[in-house]
């Protein structure tokens, strides 16, 4: 068990190292110089010595592996570099944005699991029943309608019909103004939750239908157990592995989705930071934010793997 976890951790480190290399490589494809590019026309007024000095300060223009190495080295010390556009440290920018995205992701996952599991379980118990039909309808909307359409429509309807737009007051901290904060998080979380809820619903429904016919389920019913006990303790637990897998996969979409939804609902999270930095060609921020998203995804995937051994004792090797 312990060697298993150690092996997973090592695997995870290797994957993250590769991810950092990919991110770094991709952003180095860029023609031109990020430092002078963000100065606009005034870059033309710089003398050669000034350009060299600037490049030296921001560390651009060095050989590829030297740049990568120094970036990687500074990652371990928690120093993510200096933002080219705001000239504050990247770490402090991320520090303020990360909690927002984290809260959004957790709220979305909760809503998604709630929608997905409830509709999935009840749909599987009574296929073609009204609840099942509603669930299927929600699934089609969740899968087919992009989050930017749902989000845009929500904002438009709320703002124009109900004159309600909680984000206009500036983002409220969860601990200072929980009521306003929850209002600001709920609608973006609902937007994302619908999308992941749809996928989770379909998986739950299919997995439940698969186990209802199995012997142990029939035995449980034959023993005269209550319907609720059979549903949740036998069927749902039996279906939990695919549901967990799907939830892990959906988290990847969720992290990508926060970029879009934060943009629509004006939440000052990592996704918004990413888009702003892309528009400002602020690469120290872009590469760090993408790396953090990837790290989050990798860590969650590892936790999902560990969860299997909790859910399904057979996978404990």
């Amino acid at each position, binding site marked *: 068990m312990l060697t298993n976890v150690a092996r997973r951790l090592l695997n995870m480190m290797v994957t993250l190292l*590769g991810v950092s290399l990919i991110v770094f490589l*991709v952003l180095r494809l860029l023609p031109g110089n990020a430092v002078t590019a963000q100065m606009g026309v005034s870059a033309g007024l710089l003398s050669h010595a000034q350009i060299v000095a600037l490049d030296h300060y921001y560390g651009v223009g060095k050989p590829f592996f030297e740049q990568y190495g120094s970036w990687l080295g500074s990652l371990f010390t928690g120093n993510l570099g200096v933002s080219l556009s705001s000239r504050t440290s990247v770490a402090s920018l991320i520090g303020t944005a990360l909690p927002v995205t984290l809260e959004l992701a957790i709220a979305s996952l909760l809503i998604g699991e709630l929608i997905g599991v409830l509709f999935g379980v009840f749909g599987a118990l009574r296929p073609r029943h009204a609840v099942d039909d509603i669930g299927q309808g929600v699934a089609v909307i969740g899968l087919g309608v992009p989050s930017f359409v749902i989000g845009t429509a929500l904002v438009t309807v709320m703002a124009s019909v109900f004159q309600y737009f909680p984000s206009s007051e500036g983002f409220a901290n969860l601990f200072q103004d929980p009521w306003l904060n929850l209002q600001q998080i709920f609608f973006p979380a609902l937007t994302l939750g619908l999308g992941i809820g749809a996928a989770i619903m379909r998986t739950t429904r299919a997995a439940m239908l698969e186990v209802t016919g199995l012997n142990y389920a029939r035995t449980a019913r034959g023993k005269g157990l209550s319907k609720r006990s059979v549903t949740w303790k036998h069927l749902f637990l039996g279906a939990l592995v695919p549901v967990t897998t799907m939830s892990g996969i959906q988290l990847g979409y969720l992290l990508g989705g926060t970029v879009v939804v934060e943009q629509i609902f004006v939440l000052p999270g990592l996704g918004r930071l990413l888009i702003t930095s892309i528009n400002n060609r602020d690469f120290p921020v872009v590469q760090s934010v993408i790396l953090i998203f990837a790290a989050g995804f990798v860590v969650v995937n590892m936790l999902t793997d560990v969860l299997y051994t909790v859910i399904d004792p057979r996978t404990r090797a």
Partner: protein
Amino acid sequence: MALAEPSLAIPGLESPRRRSLLASLWANPSGRVGCVLAGIVVLAAISGAVGLTPYPAQSQNPVATLRAPSFAHLLGTDQFGRDMFSLVLQGLYVSLKISCVAVAIAGVLGTLGGIVAGYSGRWVSAVIMRATDMLFAIPAILLALAIVTALGAGWFNSALAIGIGYIPIFVRVVRGPVLALREAGYVRAGRVLGFSPARLLFRHILPNVAGIVAVQTSLALAWAVLAEATLSFLGLGPPAPTASLGEMVYNSTSQSLAATAWWTLAGPSLAVVIAVIGFNFLGDGLRDAIDPRGRTR
């Protein structure tokens, strides 16, 4: 089964194997819906491509700005008096062009990677799968964002970015069955007969994963349309004046048109939704048609 005489066959009761793929696709509810919707989308895109639109897509009409949908303008007009329906048709063409190229990139590279990873020995397989894991660890839309940022906006760069993000899924989906097929009797027989690995892979194994690839291609198209619209919604799509559905949605909100002129939001959104649902259903239907046991519903 092979012994059954033709005369013993019950009339009207054909074995499902006999039915062509298209027929069983049509017999399947999601397959049928998928066929119809995807067909509509493809036709709309073609008419957008050849300029078969009610109005020239980009022509502005200052006296007919922000008109509500009517018979003259099926989806209304935008703030420049451009016909939304014509713009949507052109946007669908651009979207489908990008998506098809993206899926071609992902499909060819991913299938190749999956086949090689499934068939070859431990080391090659481990290298490919590890690289796939690394690519997969970056949420696909973020990878696409990074690539477009680096390469600059443009339709081919969008396609490349979206395609690269989808490669890992093809690799994973193809590799599993190839692992099983490697030990199949006819493949082992081929190996004994001294067939080259290339011949075994492309003549014997590839045809047997073609169904899986077809299903994944359809699902990938749905994802690509979604990703393209998302990129252009975030302002990273092909630059204007190329019509793009995501950018049209963005314009509708950024200009605060959506509240008063709802059709500027509804038209392009509806086009994306129909395309995404259509290709998703087509993929589901194809899966059921190819493997009736693996039914999801």
